[in-house]
């Protein structure tokens, strides 16, 4: 997927394999992976002559944003799907409590 994100143009299976030289993957393996990515909607493919060409459906940033939005969403459903560590607290309140903690810590040490 990283290869598709880097590329400006749609890539053929052979071109993707070519960029994954460090991994030494079989041509069919790369083809299977690309096919799966296309089925899940992460990659789009178009026929170019005899070979399929693949490109990323969305940018990496778009997926990171989607991931983070659903993680930070506070409207019920997501909250149950993903158990979040801390829900938002206002900056001023948190700062006040953190300051109080700081003085407590110093008192303990001193």
């Amino acid at each position, binding site marked *: 997927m990283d290869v598709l994100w880097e590329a400006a143009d749609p890539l053929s299976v052979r071109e993707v394999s070519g960029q994954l030289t460090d991994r030494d993957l079989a041509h069919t393996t790369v083809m299977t992976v690309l096919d799966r990515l296309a089925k*899940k909607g992460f990659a789009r493919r178009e026929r170019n002559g005899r070979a399929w060409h693949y490109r990323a459906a969305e940018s990496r940033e778009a997926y990171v944003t989607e*991931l983070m939005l659903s*993680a930070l969403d506070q409207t019920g459903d997501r909250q149950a799907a*993903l158990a979040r*560590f*801390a829900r938002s607290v206002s900056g001023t309140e948190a700062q006040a409590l953190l300051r109080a903690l700081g003085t407590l810590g110093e008192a303990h040490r001193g």
Partner: protein
Amino acid sequence: MSAADLILAVLAIGCIPAASALASASWPRRSPVAAILLWQALGLGWGLAAVGTLIGFAVTSNGAVAGAGALERLASLVRAGHARPVAAIGLVRLICLAAGLLLLAVLCWILLAATASVLRARQRQRELLSLLAHDDPKVPGALVVDHPAAAAYCLPGLRPEIVISAGVLDLLDADELAAVLAHERAHLRERHDLVLLPFLALLRAFSWAGITTQAYRAVGLLLEMHADDRVLRQVPARGLATALLRVGSAGGGGVPTGALAVAGAPAECEVAARVIRLLRPPPVLNGAATALVLAVSAALVVLPAALLILPLH
């Protein structure tokens, strides 16, 4: 209406003010586990009593097996195979019977629907994580997503994952990160998501009833407090408290304001309540009080179940 039906009706109606009182009580934060059990018993007891009241009332006049439990009376009514049910038990009772069965079906359905929607959301998360996340030696066993906003959460399931954003890695020191990981591991190990699921189902189906929101929030907060308690066995309270405040105050970045506005105010109270509880732990509920809570919880489930099955003379 028989005595059993009357008791069921009182239970079904009484559960609602009882839940309201429990939501605003202060003792639950002293013993989150006992309080969570009571919440579950209230929910299950209400469901049994509400369905039981409607069905019990509908089949009460079936003279042949008067005195039998509601379920047995219903079975004998069905066995008798009335060709004209309206004539057999009357229109009002027939409507009650239909309403009882409908309520039972709705309760089962909303639980399935909530489960399905939660599983879908998690599946999408897993797919995205498999493309985007990577390991980091600072947080062994967790997945890291490169984004400056602070988010730390876990994906419960058969293949549980803990996810930490790069923002959190920058924000917290080693002790605080250890506290975050321990907290999420407690959630995953004890499957807190399964405890919350029925309350989510009730919230989604009956969001017009304020009590479902109260119940969902209260149980969610108690689960967080319980996970906090688990952390304290491994990490000092201070690290967990500062981690909570740092992540909590930075977490809003990138969230549409609409989403924040919905849950903003109560969420603030929740983090503050957890921090205060960590710094000044309230005394744990004593043995007698805990036993009382457990006994009430058991009674809330056993009583309506028994009234449905056993005859009451």
